[in-house]
């Protein structure tokens, strides 16, 4: 079974530039998550999709971050403009069932963003 694919693996940009990350979840997984993991901390949920609808984006800094999930499959996360504090690993995860708390989330390898 193919896992969650993310690209790029690494990205270095200057502050005030824009950047986009891509995620391809496991086939058939309805729920997709984007997490931000700052060095030394646990992952923080940025946005959660159920199919192509947003379930939770309460912690997404909407003045600079945006995300979409076209056709309920692939997803992109964009930052514009980037700030130094956005340096982190951005993790994408997917899970199969909506409302079934017994289903685990599968994570991609993440995109490490460095803002200089």
């Amino acid at each position, binding site marked *: 079974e193919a896992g969650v694919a993310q690209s790029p693996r690494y990205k270095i940009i200057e502050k005030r530039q824009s950047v986009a990350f891509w995620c391809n979840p496991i086939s058939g997984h309805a729920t997709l998550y984007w997490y931000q993991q700052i060095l030394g*901390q*646990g992952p923080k949920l940025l946005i959660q999709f159920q199919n192509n609808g947003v*379930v939770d984006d309460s912690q997404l800094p909407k003045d600079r971050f945006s995300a979409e999930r076209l056709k309920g499959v692939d997803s992109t996360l964009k930052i514009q403009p980037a700030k130094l504090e956005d340096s982190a690993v951005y993790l994408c995860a997917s899970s199969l069932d909506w*409302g*079934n*708390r017994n*289903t685990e*989330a*599968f994570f*991609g390898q993440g995109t490490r963003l460095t803002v200089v």
Partner: protein
Amino acid sequence: AQSVTQLDSHVSVSEGTPVLLRCNYSSSYSPSLFWYVQHPNKGLQLLLKYTSAATLVKGINGFEAEFKKSETSFHLTKPSAHMSDAAEYFCVAIKAAGNKLTFGGGTRVLVKP
């Protein structure tokens, strides 16, 4: 509100000795609980999960965890640490209403030869 607390940010053990990683959760009802491991520059991998069946859960690589509702705990153990166990470990809770994952702060495990 649901929260997950990992009581130790760092744990150092010698190879061949037991490992104990502590996790407490707070919730108005029993959530499903998971332990994930994250090796350097790798994604998170599921070690084991508790889903209201048996309270003692066995996972991969010799890890197990025990759910104790009275103590609101889900501690992870391994009887004998291996060098390859050096990684960061996350305790995660999920509730059905929304499938929202709540992460603990993580415990970094160092294994000494």
